C-alpha cells in the first residue's frame, strides 16, 4: 500500500465491502446520467482538440459530483476513500468510454508525487485542484533518446546556476506534452557517480522560456507523444522534489504508486465478441469462418486467457476489499493481453480479407481491427516493454538474477557510449 493510500480512511473489512457495493451503485448512477454528454457515442468523430475540450468539461463535472481524487485526502479536493473505491469507479468509467485518458498520467503519477514532495504547499494545493478539475495537465518527462527501458541512462542535465538550476537536454515519448502546463522530470545532476546515484527529480513549467514541444506522429497516425527540448531552462531550487542525487528513488515510487489499476483483459483492443461477430460474418474457403478449427481455437484460447486475467483482477479487488494486499500476478495483465490482442487483430484482418484493408485513422482501437492492429506495438512498448515486464516478473517475483550489467557501479561519465 502506498503512502498516499495510508491517508485514506481506515475502515473494517465488512463495512468496506458493503461500502464498495453502495459506491459502485452511486458511480454507475452518476456515470449513466452523464454518459450521453461525455460517453463513447458523444465522442465519436471528434477531433483530438474537441475531445480534449470535452474531457476538461467531463473532469470538472466529475469534480463537482464528488468522484475526483477518490483516494486522495480531502484537503487536496479528494474524497479520502480507498484505492479500491478508485479502481471500482475507473472500471465503470472505462466501460462507458469517458474522455478521461488525457488526464490519466497527470493524475496517476506526477500530481500525486507533487502532493507528496512539493515544497510550496499553497502552490501545490492550487495545482492539484486545477489538475483534478481538468484545467491543468501534468506530464511525466522520463524517457529520452538514450534511456527508455534503461531510465537511469538518461542524459538530460541540470547544472547549478546561482541559487537554482539550469536545465538542458531532450526528453522523448512524453504523452500529451503538447497540452501540458507542467511536468515532472528526472535529470542528471552529477555525471561523476554511478548512473542511478546522479539523478535528481524536479517539477518544470512547460510554458517556461527554453521549453520546446514537438509532437511525434506515430505509425497509426496519431500524435499524442512528443519530444521535448530544454534549452537553458531556469529551475528554482524549490522545484526540486528529491534530494540532490535521490531522483531515481522518487522516479521508482512514481512508477509503483498503483500496481493495480483499472485493467482491460482485451489489451485495450476489441472485445472478443467483436471477433466472434467477424468470424460469423466471414467465410474461409467457402465455409463459415466460425466453423473453422483455427478460428475456433483462437477464440477459445483468447477467451481462456482473458477469463484468467479477469479472475486475477476480481480476486485482487476482493483481497483489497478484505483489507489484504493482492498478489503480484496483477502485473501479468499488460504483458499477456496486449500481445494477444496484436495477434488476434492480425487474424481478424485475415478473415476480413480485402475488406480489412480499409483504414480509418480516427477509428478507435477498441472498435476497429485495423486500428487495434496498427496501434498494438505501442501498447507492447509503452509503460514497460514486454521484455522489461518479463525481467520484472523474473527478478521481483521469482527471485531470478539481474541481467549482466557492465555499467553497474561505473561512474556515468565513464560508461562506454
Amino acid at each position, binding site marked *: 500500500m502506498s503512502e498516499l493510500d495510508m491517508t485514506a480512511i481506515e475502515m473494517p473489512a465488512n463495512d468496506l465491502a458493503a461500502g464498495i457495493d453502495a459506491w459502485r451503485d452511486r458511480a454507475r448512477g452518476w456515470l449513466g446520467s452523464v454518459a450521453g454528454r461525455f460517453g463513447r457515442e458523444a465522442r465519436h468523430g471528434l477531433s483530438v482538440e474537441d475531445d480534449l475540450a470535452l474531457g476538461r468539461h467531463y473532469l470538472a463535472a466529475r469534480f463537482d459530483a464528488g468522484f475526483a481524487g477518490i483516494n486522495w485526502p480531502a484537503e487536496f479536493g479528494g474524497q479520502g476513500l480507498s484505492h479500491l473505491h478508485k479502481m471500482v469507479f475507473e472500471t465503470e468509467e472505462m466501460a462507458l468510454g469517458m474522455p478521461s485518458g488525457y488526464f490519466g498520467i497527470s493524475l496517476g503519477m506526477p500530481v500525486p508525487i507533487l502532493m507528496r514532495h512539493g515544497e510550496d504547499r499553497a502552490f501545490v494545493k492550487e495545482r492539484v485542484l486545477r489538475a483534478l478539475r481538468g484545467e491543468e495537465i501534468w506530464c511525466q518527462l522520463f524517457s529520452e533518446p538514450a534511456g527508455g527501458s534503461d531510465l537511469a541512462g538518461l542524459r538530460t542535465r541540470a547544472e547549478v546556476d546561482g541559487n537554482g538550476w539550469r536545465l538542458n537536454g531532450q526528453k522523448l515519448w512524453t504523452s500529451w506534452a503538447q497540452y501540458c502546463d507542467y511536468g515532472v522530470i528526472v535529470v542528471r545532476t552529477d555525471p561523476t557517480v554511478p548512473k542511478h546515484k546522479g539523478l535528481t527529480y524536479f517539477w518544470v513549467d512547460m510554458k517556461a522560456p527554453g521549453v520546446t514541444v514537438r509532437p511525434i506522429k506515430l505509425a497509426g497516425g496519431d500524435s499524442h507523444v512528443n519530444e521535448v527540448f530544454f534549452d537553458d531552462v531556469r529551475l528554482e531550487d524549490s522545484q526540486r522534489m528529491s534530494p540532490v542525487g535521490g531522483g531515481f528513488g522518487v522516479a521508482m515510487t512514481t512508477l509503483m504508486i498503483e500496481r493495480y489499476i483499472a485493467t482491460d483483459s482485451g489489451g485495450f483492443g476489441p472485445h472478443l*465478441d467483436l471477433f*466472434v461477430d467477424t468470424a460469423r460474418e466471414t467465410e474461409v474457403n467457402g465455409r463459415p469462418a*466460425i466453423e473453422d*478449427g483455427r478460428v*475456433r*481455437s483462437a*477464440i*477459445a*484460447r483468447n*477467451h*481462456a*486467457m482473458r*477469463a*484468467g*486475467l479477469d*479472475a*486475477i483482477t*476480481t*480476486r485482487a479487488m*476482493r*483481497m483489497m476489499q*478484505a483489507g*489484504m494486499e493482492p498478489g503480484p*500476478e496483477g502485473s*501479468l495483465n499488460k*504483458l*499477456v493481453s496486449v500481445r494477444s490482442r496484436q495477434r488476434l487483430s492480425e487474424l481478424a484482418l485475415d478473415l476480413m480479407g480485402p475488406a480489412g484493408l480499409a483504414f480509418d485513422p480516427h477509428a478507435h482501437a477498441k472498435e476497429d481491427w485495423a486500428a487495434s492492429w496498427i496501434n498494438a506495438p505501442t501498447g507492447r512498448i509503452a509503460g514497460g516493454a514486454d*521484455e522489461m515486464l*518479463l*525481467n520484472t*516478473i*523474473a*527478478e521481483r*517475483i*521469482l*527471485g*531470478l*538474477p*539481474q*541481467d*549482466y550489467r557492465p555499467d553497474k557501479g561505473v561512474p556515468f561519465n565513464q560508461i562506454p557510449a
Partner: protein
Amino acid sequence: MSILHDEGQLAIASQSRRVLDARMAKDRLLGLLEQVGRHDQVFWDTAIEQGWTALAVPEAHEGLGLGLIVLGLVAQAAGAATSGAPFLTTGYGVTRALIDGAAPDLAAQWLPRMARGEVIAVVALAEGNCVLPARPAVAFADGRLTGVKPAVTGALAADLALVWASGVAGPVLALAELAGVARHPVNSFDNSRLYGDLHFAGTPAHVLAQGDAARALADDILARMAVVTAHEQVGGAEALLYIARDYALTRKAFGQPIGAFQSVKHRIAELYGLVEIARANAIHAAACEGTAEFALAAADARLSATEAYDTAARDCVQIHGGIGVTWEGGLHLHMRRARSLAIEQGNLLFWEDRLVDALIGDRA
C-alpha cells in the same frame, strides 16, 4: 464469480501439500512406470486417511459434503506430487452421478463405501478418440451392458464403473460392478493411471439417467472432472515452475547462474504467467459450481491448465538440459503426467470446441 479461500480451505490445502511432501517418493513413482496395473498404495492410503475420498460425498451418506473448491485444492497438491493413483477424480465423477442421478437407493448403497475408500469407482465415457461420443457403441439393454470401453482411467483397480452407453431409446448413464468384467491392461507411458479396456459382455448395470437427462448429466460430470483435473494440472505446472526456477538459480554456466540469461529467465517468467492464469481460471470455475456459468468456466480452466502444464513440462526439461532427460532425474514423471492428464477428460481440441459452442450458444 471469483473467491478468496477461507481459513479452513487454506488449512486443507497446506495440510494436503505437507502430507504428500512427506510421503511421496520419486523413486517409488519411477518404479511404477515400468509395471502395468500397479498404483501407489501410499498415496491412496493417504487419500483415505486424510478423508479426501469423503470430501464430495454428502453428509447424509457419511461424507463431508464439501464442493469443488476444496476438492480442487487437494487435487492441486496431488498434482504437485504427481499423485500415484487417479481415483480422486474418477471417484468424484461417480459420486456426482450418484448424487444427481435418479437412483437414491444406489447412492445409499455405494456412497458411504466410496467415502470410506472401500470402493474404487471409475468413469467410462470415452470411445475411440472421443471423450463423449454422441452415440456410444457400448450398448445397454435389458439391464445389461455389452461392448468395449477403451483405456478407461483407473480401470485396472476399479470395483465400480459409471458407463456411457446407448440404450433402447437414447443414451444412458449406467452403474456396473466390475467383479466379473474382463479388463485388458494398456501398457501406457503413465502406468500408475491404470488404463485398461473394459470388456462388457452382458454385464448387469443400473441406470442412473437416460435420454436428455443422461446427456446433461454426462456433460456436467465431464466438466466437473475437468475442473478437478485442471487443479491437478495447475499443481503440476506450479511445481515445475519452481523446480525450473531453483535449478536456474543454482546451475552455473559461462560464469553465472543460467537464470541470469534472458533466454532462461524469460522462459520461466512466461511459465509464471501461464500458471497464474490457469490457477485463476481453476479457482473461478470451482467457485462457479452449480451456476449457469459453470460450463464455460470449466472450459476456460481446462484449456489454460492443459497449456500451462504441457508448457511447463516442455520448458522445465529444456532448462535442465541433459539432466532433464535422465530417467533418474524424474522430470519425465511430470512430462508423462502432463500428457496423460491432457488426454483424460477430453483433449484441447474437444474443449476448444466446447468453449466456442458455449460462447456462441450464449449469444445466439
